[in-house]
């Protein structure tokens, strides 16, 4: 243990602790800007660049960045001396002097870390006037970039390169012109970006924000010729409450359904329902591949999950040689759209073009997935609009509602009933566990002795297990972060030395609960943990916890699809992937 004083208070912390952590452990909250950490989720951005967290260390010539300076025996640290406060304020004033002051209209108004820092330091005016940075605005279907607001914290760059290994963003130029951008400052959409949107989730300011689709949805609701239905993804219900002052991990399923009805959606359905459908299709596909493998037929193993649209784009751009490995099953959002437009529309007595399907997702990549050409018929997308959890919260507030006041209501039928297996889709390991619950019973014909697969749960970035499928050792892996997914794909390229059969991939920290469309967690990983606990609480409380026991799912197969992976489901519920990699084409 190391003894030191912070603001004259003697404290003791383990060796290797930074001054920042030592102070926070002792109730002294030194402000930061660039520093960002997701504790236990393998994400840390610590460039020591913003210099907001500087403190005075006795005997040291200059001020020390608390985030990057380890404690030492006998150290005397001052976090609020006149010298420190002046320096900290001046540094923030400098940052503000190169930042647009359009806070009132900024997407991040109220959620901006620079704004709260300015307030906290009591900065009332900016003494520095001078040139400000201006860059071209740029947008994909998911992410909006306004780099005039960039503070060079580099969180997005670290997220894009270290965590996701997407490699779309890099620090470019230098000095005052330095900024984070794609190569040649080209459009993000022309880069290797996979639209995971995590750059938006970690951006402290309004430089990277989501593409707001609220107005389009409001217009559709207001259009009397349209019938507007909505689906809500599993992870939304365990995070939406945060936007209304509820504690992280509060489950708001019923209140959310009630709010959606009051917003004017004609029918309120559940993506959990189509998650159960996904398990039927994906589980059947897995068993089919395993059967072939056991019979010695050539087959692509391991099979990868394909629910995560950032992951889908990632392998299309980076692993065009391995496109036959991921499951062909559409994501739950995609399946819901296909069922709604093909099966539901006639039932509701409307043409597919007049049925507007809206989805509420914890994710920004879903906005891009929605627009994929192969998920549309004659230009009419199966899912017409995708809103994130944050946009839904905005919309609820805009419509003078408070989620806290909502009654508990149920989803509409027939695309509303779901099982515990569906809700866990929202957390890393959940799709795997849901698939195992169904695949085991279908494969063995026996009832699972224990429904909970603890091996697939938790925040480890890579989880591996061998599941006894009645004598057959099923080798599985669960990963989150596209960096970990990349390692798995590289193993497949090397011939799958670990002999995996099935691998689940989610791009975001902790899975969809940590998605880019969720309320901002500002690096507080406890929030993501609480969401995960809520997911498993919701699962445990469900009367039915296996997808193949969902009565509405069984009914639709009986009435419409026939059997999983049958002809019609192949047509509507499965998809295919495209080589989107860079090509080296030499001209003569």
């Amino acid at each position, binding site marked *: 243990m190391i003894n030191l004083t912070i603001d004259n208070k003697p404290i003791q912390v383990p060796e290797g602790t930074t001054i920042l952590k030592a102070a926070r452990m002792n109730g002294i909250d030194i402000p930061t800007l660039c520093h960002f950490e997701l504790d236990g989720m393998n994400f840390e951005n*610590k*460039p*020591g*660049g*913003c*210099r*907001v967290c*500087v403190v005075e260390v006795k005997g040291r010539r*200059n*001020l020390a*960045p608390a985030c*990057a300076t*380890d404690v030492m025996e006998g150290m005397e640290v001052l976090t609020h001396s006149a*010298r420190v406060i*002046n*320096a900290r304020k*001046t*540094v923030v004033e*400098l*940052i503000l*002097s*190169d930042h647009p002051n359009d806070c009132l209209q900024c997407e991040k108004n109220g959620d901006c870390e620079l704004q709260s820092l300015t307030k906290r330091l009591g900065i009332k005016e900016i*003494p*520095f*006037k*001078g*040139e400000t940075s201006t860059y071209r605005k740029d947008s994909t279907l998911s992410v909006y970039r306004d780099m005039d607001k960039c*503070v*060079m914290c580099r969180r997005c760059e670290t997220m894009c390169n270290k965590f996701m290994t997407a490699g779309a963003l890099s*620090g470019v*130029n*230098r*000095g*005052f*012109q*330095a900024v984070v951008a794609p190569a040649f400052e080209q459009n993000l959409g022309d880069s290797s970006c996979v639209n995971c949107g995590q750059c938006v989730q970690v951006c402290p300011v309004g430089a990277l924000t989501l593409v707001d689709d609220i107005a389009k949805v409001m217009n559709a609701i207001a259009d009397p010729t349209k019938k507007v239905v909505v689906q809500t993804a599993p992870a939304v219900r365990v995070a939406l409450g945060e936007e209304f002052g509820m504690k992280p991990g509060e489950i708001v399923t019923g209140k959310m359904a009630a709010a959606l009805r009051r917003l004017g959606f004609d029918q309120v359905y559940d993506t959990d329902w189509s998650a159960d459908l996904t398990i039927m299709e994906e589980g059947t596909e897995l068993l089919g591949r395993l059967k072939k493998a056991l019979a010695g037929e050539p087959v692509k193993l391991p099979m990868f999950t394909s629910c995560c649209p950032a992951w889908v784009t990632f392998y299309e751009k980076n692993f065009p040689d391995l496109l036959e490995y991921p499951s062909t099953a559409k994501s739950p959002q995609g399946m819901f759209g296909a069922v709604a437009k093909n099966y539901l529309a006639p039932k509701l007595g409307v043409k597919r073009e007049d049925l507007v399907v809206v989805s509420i997702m914890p994710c920004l990549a879903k906005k891009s997935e929605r627009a994929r050409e192969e998920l549309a018929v004659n230009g009419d997308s199966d899912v017409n609009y995708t809103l994130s959890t944050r946009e839904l919260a905005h919309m609820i507030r805009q419509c003078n509602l408070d989620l806290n006041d909502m009654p508990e209501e149920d989803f509409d039928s027939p695309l509303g009933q779901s099982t515990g297996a569906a809700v866990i889709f929202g957390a890393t390991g959940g799709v795997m566990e849901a698939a195992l619950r169904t695949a085991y019973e279908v494969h063995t014909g026996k009832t699972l002795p224990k429904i909970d697969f603890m091996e697939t749960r938790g925040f480890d970035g890579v989880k591996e297990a061998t599941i006894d499928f009645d004598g057959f050792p099923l080798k599985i892996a669960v990963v989150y972060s596209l960096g970990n997914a990349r390692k798995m794909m590289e193993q497949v390229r090397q011939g799958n030395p670990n002999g995996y059969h099935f691998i689940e991939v989610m791009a975001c920290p902790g899975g969809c609960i940590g998605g880019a469309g969720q309320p901002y967690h500002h690096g507080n990983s406890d929030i993501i943990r609480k969401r995960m606990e809520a997911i498993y609480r919701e699962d445990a409380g469900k009367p039915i916890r296996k997808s193949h026991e969902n009565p509405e799912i069984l009914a639709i197969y009986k009435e419409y699809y026939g059997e999983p992976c049958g002809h019609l489901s192949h047509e509507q519920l499965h998809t295919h992937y495209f080589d989107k990699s860079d090509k080296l084409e030499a001209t003569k």
Partner: protein
Amino acid sequence: MPPGRELEGQRGEPTLKPPFPAVSGYMGKPSNVNNVETFANVPVIITKGAAWFSSIGTEKSKGTKVFALAGQINNVGLIEVPMGITLREIIYEIGGGIKNGRQFKAVQTGGPSGGCLTAKHLDTAIDYDSLVAAGSMMGSGGMVVMDETSCMPAIAKFYLEFTCEESCGKCSPCRIGNKRLCEILEKITDGRGTMEDLQELRNLAAVIKDTALCGLGQTSPNPVLSTLDNFWDEYVEHVVDKKCRAGVCKKLMSYVIDREKCIGCGKCAKGCPVEAISRTDYTAPGHKLASMVIDSTKCIKCGACINNCKFGAISIQ
């Protein structure tokens, strides 16, 4: 810039220290980073012994030092001198004094991270500590001598422009702070400065020194602080009197033709790149041609006319 970043194929941005390069440098391995001069000292220390090397120099700074002597001085070039030598010896004995018999004004040591010393430092024995005590540093070993034709606020701005160009942009004090320092200096040299600007320069320079991530940012305000300390009057002249005594700050000066001295040859007008010079209808007594005049709204103060006038009729005011 930290060693090894380029070798590793990275942007040359500083990393946090510790760990220092001697512990973890290139590819995470202990790395020895020194100037060529340091390495060049090694063979002679090995052959002649440490005692011999230590016999040269001062108590705390041993051996010799190579300076790149340059600027407004008669003898320029690389010089190797014992530590402890005075500036006067270097400038007037080795350097042969100031060019064209002008007055010594300042000597800038240490490169853009260093500071400017004045006549009052001429007899200071130069070593690592005395230079720092005087507000400069050994730094690059550059030693640029300036005479009264150098404007000190303009020199500070010149160095800040360099720092802004060289800043990697990683830390906010250096990325934005140096830019703002430079902008304030530009205001001053353009004649738009205020006394509050001089105050702001000091505070901002001090904060940048105190908070910047690497050696570049931590020393970049030195030229500002040392010129403020040693040439305060010159700053005040720029701000209050709107005058540049060195005749360097273009916005603070105008080119004027003395109509009595002008013989009307028109050579100045021919050489003027912006056609700012025209003929008047006044012919001075004793001259055959009408004199010339400069339109100050067109003049870009390039100095071409002064160089072309053989009669000393054009001056800067």
